[in-house]
C-alpha cells in the first residue's frame, strides 16, 4: 500500500538523481519511506537512495516493492510546476500508480519488479580520505575537465584536494586547500574516474551545499549528499579506472 503527496520539484530531483544510474528501478517502500539501490548495466556506478517519510507532505505505506520506468515518470513530471503537489496512490491489484499533479491524473503502468535487475551487493570499502565541499565547486571542476578529456583524477596530497584532467595536449587542475573546503580528513588518495559518469552525477549534486567525497588510492569514490532538507540522502559509488595486471 502506498498513498503519498510530495512537492513536484523534490520528486523530480529525486527521479533525476536515480536516472543517472538506470532507466528502470525497483522502489522499496516501507513505513519509514522509499529506498532504492541500483547499479548501472556496466557495473561501474551504483546509486543508493533514500527518501524518508518526513520528506512527504503526506505519507502512508506498508511494505512493498514496485518497478518504475524512470523515463516515463520524469516525462510526466516535466509538465508540473515547481510548487505543485504530486499525489500518488498505488493500486496493487492492477499494478498501476495513480498520479495526480496540477489537475492532471495519470495512470502509470508499473513494471514487474522481477524483470528489473536485483539490488546489487555493495562492496565494503575502506576509504581513508574525506573531502566535504560545495556542490557547485565539484561541478565547476568536472565541467572544466570535460572540455579537454574524458577522465579526471581526484586526490589529496598534504592538505590540498585536487581535481585534474589531462587531454592529449592540454591539462586543467583545480586545487582546494583546507580553508576553501568545508571539511577535510587528509590521507593518501588518488584515483582516476570516467567523466561519462561524473558529469551526470554532479548535476543532482550541484544543488547540494555540502557534498562529501570519500576516496582512496585506485579505489572507488563515494559521493554523498542530502536532499529534501535532510529528509533524504543520495549516495553514488563509482568504480575507478585502474591499470589492470
Amino acid at each position, binding site marked *: 500500500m502506498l498513498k503519498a503527496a510530495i512537492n513536484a520539484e523534490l520528486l523530480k530531483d529525486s527521479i533525476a538523481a536515480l536516472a543517472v544510474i538506470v532507466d528502470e528501478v525497483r522502489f522499496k517502500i516501507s513505513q519509514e519511506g522509499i529506498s532504492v539501490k541500483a547499479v548501472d548495466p556496466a557495473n561501474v556506478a551504483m546509486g543508493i537512495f533514500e527518501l524518508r517519510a518526513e520528506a512527504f507532505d503526506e505519507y502512508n505505506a506498508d511494505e512493498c516493492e514496485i518497478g518504475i520506468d524512470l523515463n516515463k515518470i520524469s516525462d510526466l513530471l516535466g509538465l508540473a510546476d515547481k510548487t505543485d503537489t504530486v499525489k500518488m496512490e498505488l493500486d496493487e491489484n492492477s499494478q498501476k500508480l495513480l498520479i495526480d499533479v496540477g489537475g492532471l491524473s495519470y495512470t502509470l503502468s508499473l513494471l514487474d519488479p522481477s524483470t528489473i535487475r536485483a539490488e546489487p551487493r555493495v562492496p565494503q570499502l575502506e576509504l581513508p580520505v574525506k573531502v566535504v565541499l560545495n556542490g557547485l565547486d565539484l561541478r565547476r571542476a568536472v565541467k572544466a575537465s570535460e572540455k579537454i578529456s574524458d577522465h579526471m583524477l581526484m586526490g589529496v596530497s598534504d592538505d590540498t584536494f585536487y581535481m585534474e584532467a589531462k587531454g592529449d595536449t592540454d591539462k586543467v587542475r583545480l586545487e582546494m586547500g583546507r580553508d576553501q573546503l568545508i571539511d577535510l580528513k587528509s590521507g593518501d588518495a588518488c584515483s582516476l574516474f570516467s567523466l561519462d559518469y561524473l558529469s551526470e552525477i554532479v548535476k543532482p549534486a550541484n544543488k547540494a551545499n555540502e557534498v562529501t567525497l570519500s576516496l582512496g588510492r585506485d579505489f572507488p569514490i563515494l559521493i554523498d549528499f542530502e536532499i529534501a532538507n535532510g529528509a533524504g540522502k543520495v549516495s553514488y559509488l563509482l568504480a*575507478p579506472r585502474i591499470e589492470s595486471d
Partner: protein
Amino acid sequence: MTSFNEFAETCKAIEKISGSIETTRRVAELLRKVEVEELPLTTHFIMSEVFPAWSGKQLGIGTSLLYMALSKASGASVKSIEALVRTTGDIGETALLILKEKRKNQATFSTFFEEEPELSISEVYERFRKASEVSGKGSQNVKIKNLQYLFNSSSPREAKYIARLALEELRVGVGEGVVRDAIAKAFDVRVEVVEHAYMVTNDLGIVAAAAKEGGLEALQKLGIEINRPIKLMLSQISPDVEAEIRDMKEAAIEWKFDGARIQVHKNGDSVMLFSRKLENVTNSLPDLVDIVRKHVKAESAILDGEAVAVDEKGKPRAFQEILKRFRRKYDVEEKAASIPIQLNLFDIMYLNGRTLIDLPLLERRKALLSCVENSVENSRSIAVDEQVITGDLELVEKIYHEALRAGHEGIMVKNPESVYSPGKRGKNWLKKKPLMETLDLVVVGAEWGFGRRANLLGSYTVACYEPDTSRFLRIGKVGTGINDEQLKELTDMVLGLMGGEEVKGVFTVRPEIVFEIAFEEIQKSPNYDSGYALRFPRFIGIRLDKSPEEADPVQRVERVYSQQLKRL
C-alpha cells in the same frame, strides 16, 4: 555455471588447429564440460551465433557500437581502435591488444570484492540478450554499457572472443558439421542419430542438450515442432538435368516459380509464416494467413511453398514486388490489396502431429493434396502446384518452356523416392533454368570492407557506358564472387585510382578497370543513375582486354531488360 574462460580456451586452441578431427575433439571436450543449461548457448556460440537462426532474434550490434563500448572500457579513443582494426583486420585481436595495453581500464565493482566472480557463459549470453532487446530512448547507451561490462569483467583473452561473438564472427572455423560430430563424440551417440535430430529441430543447441541429458533415447524423441521453423530443403543447379532424369528413370517435374520461398505453420486457427531465411514474416502477410486458415484442412501442418506476387490478371510480377510484401511493416493491408499473392505449395513436412519428412516425395504429395483445398479469390490463390511424373525428356523440355513463357524461373526436377532433407542441397532436388548472363562494367566506386576484409576494398560500384555523353552510369555494387587473393589484387589496383571524394562510405574511383559481372536479373531502380540495378551480381573476372569505353553500353542493359520482360 561454466566459466567463459573454458570457451575462450577452446577457441584459442582450435584457432591453431587445421585438421577437423582435432577440432572436433576439442569441441566435444568443451560440450562435455559445460552444464546442460548452458549447452544450447555454448553450441550456438561456437558456431558464431548468439541466437539460433530460427528464433528470428537479431543481435544487432554494429561495429561503431562495439568500438564505442571498447573505448569506454579501455580508455582508448574510438579513432585509435579503428586504426588498430585496420592493421589487425580483426576486432577480436584489436580488443585483446587494447585491453592488454598498460592503460587505465575502467574497473567494475567486481574488482573490489574479495572473491572476484568469474564471467560465466550464461552471463555473456544474458548481456548480449539485454543489449539486443532494449529499445527506445537511451537504448544505445544501455547496449554500450552491457558490452562495456563484458569487456571489463573479462580477461583480454576472453574479450577477444566476446568482441568477435558480438559481431557473430568467431573465426574458429567451426560449422554445423563439426558440431554435429562433436555432439556425437561427446555424448557417445551415432552421428546419423545426431544428424537426424538436427534435421527435425533445426537447432543443434537443443540437440546437444538432449544428447547430454538422455543420450540416444532423448535424441530419437526429438521431433518437428509446430511454430519452430525447419530448415528448407534446397536444390542445386545441374549441368546436365537430362542425364540425371535418365538416372532416376522417372522424375517429378514442377515449375520453379519466380517468387519467394515460404514455410507455413498452421496450428488450429493460428498461422505462422517464415521466409527462406526462416524469419517470421507472418505480420506482413495477413492475406496469406487468411487463405491458409480457410483452405488448409488440417488441425496442424507444416507446408513448403513459393509465394508469387501477381498483377490483376494473375501474371507474375518481378521478384522485387514479393519482397516488398515480405518486408512491409506498415499499411500492410493496403499493400496486400495492391500486390496480391499466389501461394503455390509443393511439399509437406508435418501433418496432424505426425512428422512426414522421412516419407518419400510421392507419399508426402498425397498427404499434401489431402489437406489443401485449391482456391482462387480475385487474383489471390492457394494451390498445390502441378507435378508431372515422367521420364520423357521431350515432355520435360516442353514443361520447361511453358514455365519460362509463364514468367517463371524454370523447372524443378525431383527424385520421387526422396525424403525431405532439411537444410540440404543435394541431387534429389535439381533445378533447370536459363544460364546467367554477364555484363562488362566499369568500376567507378569502392568501399572498405568489414571484419576479415577490414583493410581491403570489399565492395565495388560498377557502371555501364553511355556513348552519347561519354558518361558512366552506375548500375550496382558487387562484393561476392571475389576470393581473398583477388581481393588483395583488386584493392591494390583500385587504390591507385581512388580520389578523395566519398559519399556514404563509397569512394570515387577513376573509371579504368572493367569487370565481368554475372547476375540473375536486371531490375528498374531509382537508386542508380542508369535507372537499372542488377539482382545477385557476382564478380567473374577482370576484363584486362577492355578499355572502359568498351564496357557494355546502357543500350545493352536496356535490351537485356526487355528480353526478360518478353519471357513474361
